[in-house]
């Protein structure tokens, strides 16, 4: 059986985080009563005109900077014409031959090796509405709330060769878009969708095989599954000598299979042409520089910094940069307490557990990086003990109290006043006479028991070293 090389390309549609739509002032928000977030402009009423939201252009350029793109200095807006009931103007305003961003690249890491995936282009476009099918009355209803929601379409080159690489690419791109602050990339809310192109070829073949497009995938899982299914399907076809036809397929999530939607012969002729209502966008080097300055340090740069400068482990650094808010918290904390390792350890070991369990929303961290740094400093400098530091952190998640305030209120502060320790040790020695006698008689193990009793009474407020010294003194005095 022949072994084929898999060739995958991806088109990612990401919703931009603007307050208003791309061509009108309707609010952009998830959900909402049907047909309440639309106006004569986004529903294409006669005589209305689109006016390009400049924030959309800025965000698209930001995305381009994040994905290492070049830019078309003259970029025009086009119409893509087709009839569909969710498209009220019967054309989608998009970009055809002069998109805003071109020729980018994204570094991915599948655990085995690093690889660059080239980005062909990023263009801006408007989203369409939604159809709601009512099977009982056998009718379809249109909801135009989503019409005119701004999207960027990111088209990759066919540089991926497995579902793992496709997954890594999507994760990296969504991470970069989140870092750039241009999209939430929430697949479950539809703010990120993808189309996948899959083809197979023999290793020695110079030409690409016939590609099949799988449209409208809206979860990472279905992207991976559909690619894997398609590789299997096409491999079988090629092995049995069947010809693969160029077509568009849809992934059936329940059955885990792709099914044909339309073949190349039925493909639309979109009759693209420049939208005469919208003046082309002119971009200067100054514009791009200004936008570059708006961006924070991105994933790869942060990773390098963490590993090379801060001495973190590769897996730790990867975890930290995977989420911008977490990485920002880390950066904020180490700027006040430069114990790189300790801060990283606390995040990876403790904080992320709460995030993963849904008890902490990384987008709404209820304490400042400074407070977080204080907590770790207190723990490292043994102002509180390690267990109490964790307890303090849990309380920090609830409200607005600072770690010091919590430590005080909960009595977690280590108390090195010898007086209190002496008092406690004296009381323990007088309380556990049998154990003290046993120890004095040579049962050295009982020292640990007595230590434990003292610690318990001091409730973690005292440094064990101090307790040990005083207990030893007391017991020695009894010999």
């Amino acid at each position, binding site marked *: 059986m022949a072994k084929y090389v898999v060739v995958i390309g991806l088109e990612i549609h990401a919703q931009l985080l603007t307050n208003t739509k791309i061509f009108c002032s309707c609010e952009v928000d998830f959900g909402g009563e049907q047909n309440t977030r639309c106006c*004569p402009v986004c*529903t*294409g*009423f*006669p*005589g*209305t*005109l*689109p*006016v*390009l939201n400049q924030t959309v252009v800025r965000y698209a350029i930001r995305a381009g900077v994040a994905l290492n793109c070049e830019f078309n200095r003259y970029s025009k807006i086009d*119409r893509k*014409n087709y*009839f569909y*009931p969710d498209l*009220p*103007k*019967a*054309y989608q305003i998009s970009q055809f031959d002069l998109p805003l961003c071109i020729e980018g690249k994204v570094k991915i890491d599948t655990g085995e090796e690093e690889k660059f995936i080239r980005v062909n282009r990023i263009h801006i476009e408007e989203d369409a509405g939604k159809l709601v099918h009512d099977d009982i009355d056998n009718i*379809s209803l*249109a909801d135009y709330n989503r019409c005119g929601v701004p999207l960027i379409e990111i088209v990759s080159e066919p540089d991926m060769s497995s579902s793992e690489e496709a997954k890594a690419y999507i994760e990296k791109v969504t991470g970069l878009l989140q870092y750039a602050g241009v999209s939430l990339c929430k697949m479950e809310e539809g703010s990120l969708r993808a189309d996948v192109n899959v083809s197979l070829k023999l290793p020695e073949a110079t030409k690409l095989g016939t590609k099949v497009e799988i449209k409208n995938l809206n979860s990472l899982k279905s992207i991976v599954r559909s690619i894997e299914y398609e590789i299997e399907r096409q491999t079988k076809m090629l092995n049995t000598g069947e010809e693969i036809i160029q077509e568009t397929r849809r992934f059936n999530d329940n059955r885990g299979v792709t099914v044909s939607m339309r073949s190349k012969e039925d493909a639309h*002729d979109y*009759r*693209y*042409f420049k939208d*005469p*209502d*919208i*003046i082309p966008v002119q971009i200067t080097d100054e514009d791009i520089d200004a936008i570059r300055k708006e961006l924070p340090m991105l994933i790869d740069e942060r990773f390098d910094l963490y590993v090379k400068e801060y001495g973190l482990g590769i897996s730790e650094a990867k975890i930290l940069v995977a989420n911008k808010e977490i990485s920002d918290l880390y950066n904020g904390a180490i700027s006040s307490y430069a114990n790189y390792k300790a801060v990283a350890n606390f995040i990876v070991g403790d904080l992320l557990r709460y995030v993963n369990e849904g008890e902490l929303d990384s987008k709404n961290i209820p304490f400042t990086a400074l407070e977080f740094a204080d907590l770790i400093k207190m723990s490292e400098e043994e102002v509180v003990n390690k267990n109490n530091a964790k307890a303090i952190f849990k309380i920090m998640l609830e409200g607005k109290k600072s770690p010091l305030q919590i430590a005080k209120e909960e009595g977690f502060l280590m108390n090195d006043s010898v007086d209190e320790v002496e008092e406690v040790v004296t009381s323990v020695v007088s309380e556990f006479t049998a154990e003290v006698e046993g120890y004095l008689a040579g049962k050295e193990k009982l020292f640990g028991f007595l230590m434990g009793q003292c610690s318990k009474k001091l409730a973690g407020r005292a440094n064990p070293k101090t307790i040990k010294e005083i207990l030893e003194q007391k017991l020695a005095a009894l010999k």
Partner: protein
Amino acid sequence: MELCDKSIIELRQMLDDKQISSVELTKYYLDRINQIDPKIESYITVCEESALASAAKADSRIAKGEAATLTGIPISIKDNMCTEGIRTTCGSKILGDFVPPYNATAVNKLLAEDVVILGKVSMDEFAMGGSTQTSYYKKTKNPYDLTRVPGGSSGGSAASVAAKLAVAALGSDTGGSVRQPASFCGITGMKPTYGTVSRYGLVAFASSFDQIGPLAHSAKDCASLLDTISGHDPFDGTSANKKMNFTSKLGQNIKGLKLALPKEFFEEGIDSEVRIAVLKAVEEYKKMGAEIVEVSMPSLKYAIAAYYLIASAEASSNLARYDGIKFGYCSPSAKTYQERIQRSRSEGFGDEVKRRILLGTYALSSGYYDAYYKKALYVQQKIKAEYKNIFDTCDAIITPTAPTTAYKIGEIEGDSVKMYLADICTVTVNIAGLPAVSTTCGYNAIGMPIGMSVVGKAFDDATVLQIADAFEVNFKSINPRL
């Protein structure tokens, strides 16, 4: 002189002096419409109630001494400009019952001055045509001869002004649709520089050519209207951000201005009576001290083809939204989505509109795009360059507005190619986005008006009006006999 013969300036004086109220003036025009319009058929919708309400508002504004130039003046509006609460048909069955929930920006600007909108006037369906005979509603007649067309597509606007059923009118001009009917109806009509008047609320035909423009009895009145309706509009991305004053040069001496005559506009195909009348007017300009220069525009022969390709391509896309789902005509027999679109469009659009949708769709289709649409864009660049060349040395261009005077109803409308070729004198102005005004420069042997066009540099609209006005002040116009 009758009341309906007064200019906007004269009416302004009368209103401000309380010789007449706007309500009286409005009633006077409504009466005229009732009596005369059944013959002319210019109005699709007469807005008696809202017109009188606007007039009353105008009167109280005048009483406070706060009148603007057009406050209380009754005008008509072409039925492709959206008017809130008033149905806007675009001359098409497909928009038959469409009542917009918004005003076109130009309409808003008029209402802000308390201008009285008498009603919505007829037009070729979707502004596609030069005769107003493709209107689904009113096939308007020429006031000079009721057996002849008023021109188009703003034929309702032109006829309503010529028959004095409105003091002035707004029309729209995509390939000559203001200037040609103004010429056929013996009045003045102007297409300003592209981007001068907001297109928001103007039902789109060909977006890169469409411009709203005034029709009135003089260049002066047109200038007043343009001062009111122009200006940057944040709701139109192609609206120019330029401060313009249309009246600034009126009355100034034209001595020393260089006027260009492109020879291709005076050659074969132009009716000799038209040519002679325009050349006679040019002699008048010479007498006033203008310098006349003969120039050439070699690409004129490609202009009609380029215009119809670009305009139809844009129209095929602009008109795709009429699917019978959200507004307008919906075929009662349709059961499925597919049927609904197909039947609503088949039954809702007239033949000329369908012809252009087909032409435009074809021109944009893959495999044909390069041969047609792309080539047309190339011609557009050529024409722009040729205009620029002329304007490097000249101040304005004089041409006939149309190759002929108004023709008989039914005479050529069946022949699309003939209809398209009749736009030869006007389309290049839209292709290049320039300002042009048409004014009456004479009458032919049977008394039909002849139009002359003055074309200017982009945003030099004031000069164009100055030149037209300079001719008008010495020209004796003849009223239609109704």
